[in-house]
């Protein structure tokens, strides 16, 4: 079966857009992606629109109201933090299946303020009674599990934040462009030990879009800037006796990564850069191991040795990651792919990963969904 390609991809600068609707934000990203592909709305045969907080208001149809109501099939997708990647994957499936030659994937989000993960409605609140269901705490516990097993330290977790904030100083589309030295990260307000405020991703609004096309269409458009989708894998959480009492983001990632590497016939060593789900600094280190970037227990050493910094052995989150670029749930997955595409096209400016041929993107939505994509320069 022929591969599908990304012919156009773009994102809005992540930030706060209180006066703009889901349709407007998603529509703008869609038009940017179409322009990047050299296509128009009449070329688009299907739209898959990802959003979490806009999922009740038919965001995809509202995107069409902004860019042209051509009557094509529109499907709205919601899959927690894996929403954007899941929408992209639906477009990929439609193209791979031969149902259409041009499918558009949009991820759009407007975020509420404050911490996510307040837990389910019960007769009395369970927060602070049966531990905490807040996301900073849930991911702190995952980090502490790693710490108990391998001796990973607060400082090593904090270094993730230092690195990703540094990377974002070179990304004009990131929410923040600000260095955060180690003392500042570790000394910031403690939210849930070991995650300080600067080790939590930023709740921002944003949108990103990708035009997925068939090989035939990609060749017709010219392969110069085309991105080949080598793998698209999506996993749900397999049985594990502690999950969901303790959300397991590890086995679901391992499962999706294994499938993606098998699909592509590639291994972690073949990848030149990675955008992974650093929703909290603690999470990033876990995923070094889950994605096979190092052996089990070596993530702490990897960050100490700067192996995942720009210029290192395998740069991770050179965009600034969710920690500093921002994390608008529905848009994040496609924004990760945009970052990888920039590098594969040699258009990433100051943060360009030299000679990048292949990149991997990863998102995890608690509940739980994990998507892994492998993209390659055509």
């Amino acid at each position, binding site marked *: 079966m022929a591969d599908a390609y990304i012919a156009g991809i773009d994102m809005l600068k992540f930030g706060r857009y209180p006066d703009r609707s889901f349709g407007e934000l998603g529509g703008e990203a869609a038009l940017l992606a179409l322009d990047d592909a050299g296509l128009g709305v009449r070329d688009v045969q299907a739209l898959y629109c990802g959003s979490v907080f806009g999922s009740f208001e038919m965001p995809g149809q509202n995107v069409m109201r902004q860019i042209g109501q051509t009557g094509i099939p529109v499907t709205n997708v919601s899959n927690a933090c894996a929403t954007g990647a899941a929408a992209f994957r639906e477009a990929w499936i439609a193209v791979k299946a031969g149902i259409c030659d041009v499918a558009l994937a949009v991820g759009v989000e407007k975020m509420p303020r404050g911490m996510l993960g307040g837990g389910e409605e019960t007769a009395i609140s369970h927060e*602070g*009674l049966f531990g*905490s269901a807040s996301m*900073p705490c849930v991911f702190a516990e995952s980090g*502490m599990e790693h710490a108990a097993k391998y001796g990973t330290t607060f400082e090593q977790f904090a270094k993730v934040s230092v690195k990703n904030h540094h990377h974002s100083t070179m990304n004009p589309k990131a929410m923040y462009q600000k260095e955060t030295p180690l003392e500042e990260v570790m000394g910031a307000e403690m939210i849930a*030990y070991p995650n300080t405020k600067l080790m939590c991703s930023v709740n921002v609004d944003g949108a990103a879009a990708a035009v997925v096309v068939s090989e035939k269409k990609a060749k017709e458009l010219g392969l110069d800037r085309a991105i080949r989708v080598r793998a698209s894998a999506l996993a749900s959480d397999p049985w594990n*006796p*502690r999950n969901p*009492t*303790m959300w397991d983001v590890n086995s679901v990632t391992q499962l999706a990564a294994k499938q993606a590497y098998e699909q592509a016939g590639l291994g972690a060593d073949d990848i030149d850069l990675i955008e992974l789900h650093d929703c909290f600094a603690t999470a990033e280190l876990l995923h070094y191991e889950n994605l096979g970037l190092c052996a089990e227990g070596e993530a702490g050493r990897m960050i100490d040795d700067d192996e995942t910094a720009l210029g290192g052995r395998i740069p991770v989150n050179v965009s600034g990651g969710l920690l500093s670029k921002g994390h608008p749930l529905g848009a994040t997955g496609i924004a990760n792919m945009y970052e990888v595409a920039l590098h594969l096209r040699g258009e990433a400016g100051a943060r360009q990963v030299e000679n990048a041929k292949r990149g991997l993107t990863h998102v995890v939505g608690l509940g739980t969904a994990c998507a892994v994509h492998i993209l390659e320069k055509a």
Partner: protein
Amino acid sequence: MNKTSKTKERMSTDPKPAQKFIKFETGGRPYIEGKRCRSCAAVMTSEPLACPACGAREGYDSFRAAETGVLHAYSIVARSYPGVATPFVSAIVDLDDGLTLKGNLINIPPTPETITPGMKLRVTFDDALGRTDKEGGSYIAYFFEPAEQGA
């Protein structure tokens, strides 16, 4: 189990369990009730339609969970939602018979120096921190504390 017993039935005004898997002995003492898959013996605190571990639909046997276990992971929560007192320790605890529960770890200073994964804990039951529902009803919750204390 023991449905015929008429001694000390719980009254509708008695505190209610704050989790469905908190049950009461006829004498009123609370305990954790686990469910064990009749096919693969996986344990959990609810009864899914089919076993999430093996897919069997053979049902579950109830068991009274162990009240001792070890700390698997934790976080010291310094900031929570409005109205929730901090700090508190959010703990993931593996009970000795395989159930994993999440709850507050109490009677220990909330610092990384004092809390050690792998430490032995025991389950205690108490009022749900004074929290009441809209009808003013009170609840019984479980907590964890170091096993050595008061031993």
